[in-house]
């Protein structure tokens, strides 16, 4: 396995898979942490073993097909099929090698299962993920109750540390999958499944719901962003911070519109908006995407989303609010202050 690990980390395999991680974020052929690496290595290893087996058998088969008979005759009678001694040797060799290889592969598979079932060290961080149609609600827990907070769709984790995920669903079966970091774990209503991930390299890792869960299943993405420990702490502190009140009349108007039209479903820490039906928006501008990975987080996209969510994600739980022009501009202006 050391050889294969070396192969994986040397980039040969990614070269073999042909594209960089940034270009194919959903590729699972190259992983970046101990929750996924053993699987990738096993995958490549079994792949190589399978190819080798195919090659060996093909060679033997072809050899057998095109083997010239020597045509020797012994003792007057000519046998149609020469009886050659030592055929059992082939059998013993073949079965023996196959058995050894298969047992080795089985052992490797079991070892891989064991390796990914538990994180190498006890996770210091637990994130409660609640999936609903079609977005991800996140609650960051902490032994200190006041450092518990809620956010959505964009998970930040510290690099090099395992993170525990407790998965719950509010409606149907979803599946939590970040291919570059680990395997899939179904999110099943009525129970809490637990999984873990660890990213060994800072970066953005895209995830996706991996079980068909309704009309917008294809637009239920998430991002896991691995930060250095200091960046992660700063992000946490930032999320806990309440937004500073603004003096601008447009922003205050936007806050009023938000409170009247949006607060029943959305929350902004520090304000009277504390709805739990839609994503928390306390620091919306710190996120890279909107609507669970569907849109890049730009003011234009934000305005378009609020104006007509059904056009961008038909069937989404967020209804068309028929917001007027001035109200829309005011709300977008307000949301833009939520850094």
């Amino acid at each position, binding site marked *: 396995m050391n050889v294969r690990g070396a192969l994986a980390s040397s980039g040969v395999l990614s070269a073999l898979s042909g594209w960089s991680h940034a270009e194919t974020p959903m590729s699972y052929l190259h992983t970046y942490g101990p929750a996924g690496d053993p699987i990738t290595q096993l995958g490549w290893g079994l792949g190589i073993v399978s190819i080798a087996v195919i090659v060996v058998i093909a060679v033997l088969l072809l050899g057998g097909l095109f083997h010239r008979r020597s045509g020797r005759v012994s003792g007057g009678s000519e046998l149609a099929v020469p009886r050659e001694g030592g055929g059992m040797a082939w059998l013993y060799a073949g079965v023996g090698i196959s058995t050894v290889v298969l047992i080795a592969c089985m052992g490797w598979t079991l070892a891989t299962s064991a390796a990914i079932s538990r994180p190498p060290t006890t996770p210091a961080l637990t994130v409660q993920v609640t999936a609903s*149609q079609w977005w991800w609600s996140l609650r960051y827990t902490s032994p200190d109750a006041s450092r518990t907070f809620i956010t959505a769709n964009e998970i930040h984790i510290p690099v090099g540390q395992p993170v525990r995920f407790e998965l719950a669903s509010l409606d149907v079966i979803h599946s939590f999958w970040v291919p570059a970091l680990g395997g899939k774990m179904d999110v099943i209503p009525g129970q809490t499944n637990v999984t873990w991930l660890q990213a060994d390299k800072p970066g953005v890792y895209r995830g996706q719901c991996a079980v068909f869960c309704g009309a917008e299943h294809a637009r239920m993405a998430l991002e896991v962003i691995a930060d250095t420990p200091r960046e992660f702490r700063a992000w946490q502190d930032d999320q806990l911070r309440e937004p500073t009140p603004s003096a601008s009349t447009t922003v205050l108007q936007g806050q009023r519109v938000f409170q*009247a039209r949006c607060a029943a479903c959305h929350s902004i820490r520090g304000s009277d908006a504390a709805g739990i039906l839609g994503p928390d928006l306390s620091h919306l501008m710190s996120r890279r995407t909107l609507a669970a990975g569907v849109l890049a987080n730009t003011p234009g996209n934000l305005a378009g989303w609020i104006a007509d969510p059904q056009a961008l994600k038909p*069937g989404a739980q967020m209804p*068309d609010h028929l917001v007027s022009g001035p109200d829309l501009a005011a709300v977008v202006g307000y949301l833009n202050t939520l850094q």
Partner: protein
Amino acid sequence: MPMRIVPAGLMTMSLMLCACSHSEGGSASGPPTTGLPSAGEMSAVPMGHVAGLTDSAALARSMPNPYGDDAQAVAAGKALYVKMNCAGCHAYDAKGNMGPDLTDSYWRYGGLPAQIYRSIHDGRAQGMPAWGAALPPREIWKLVAYIESLGGAYSVDGTPRNPQRAELVAPEVQAPSPAAASSP
């Protein structure tokens, strides 16, 4: 023999595909796509005096719930009933607590679909909050569909949806008849 297998197989596959096209997750939020007024039309509930005998009142009385008995709308309304904290005042079984019983046939402010819509949209004097800002018309109609499904409401022609209940309510307490309302 092999030639006949192919069309049979294609038919079977296409039948299976048709069956699969029903959304597996039960998308409870999508409105029925046919026969529904536009969002703008759905908000055109007359906002005049519902209690009086003006033309707009007659119009209000005659306006049915655009969702009718649609099961998905009722289910969506039931989910909204819990999510919007209606259950907090009217109880999880809608039999009332801080707020009145929504399953019986007594309606302080009228039990016709548009009257129930107005109560939700405008709020009412004894503490019913106004939802017109937070909930767009479609969502309010889904709530009305759920409330109507509880059996105490009235149809637009003034008849109770649940005839058994009507016997227990004095005639003058029921929704006024369309004949009285339609006088110009």
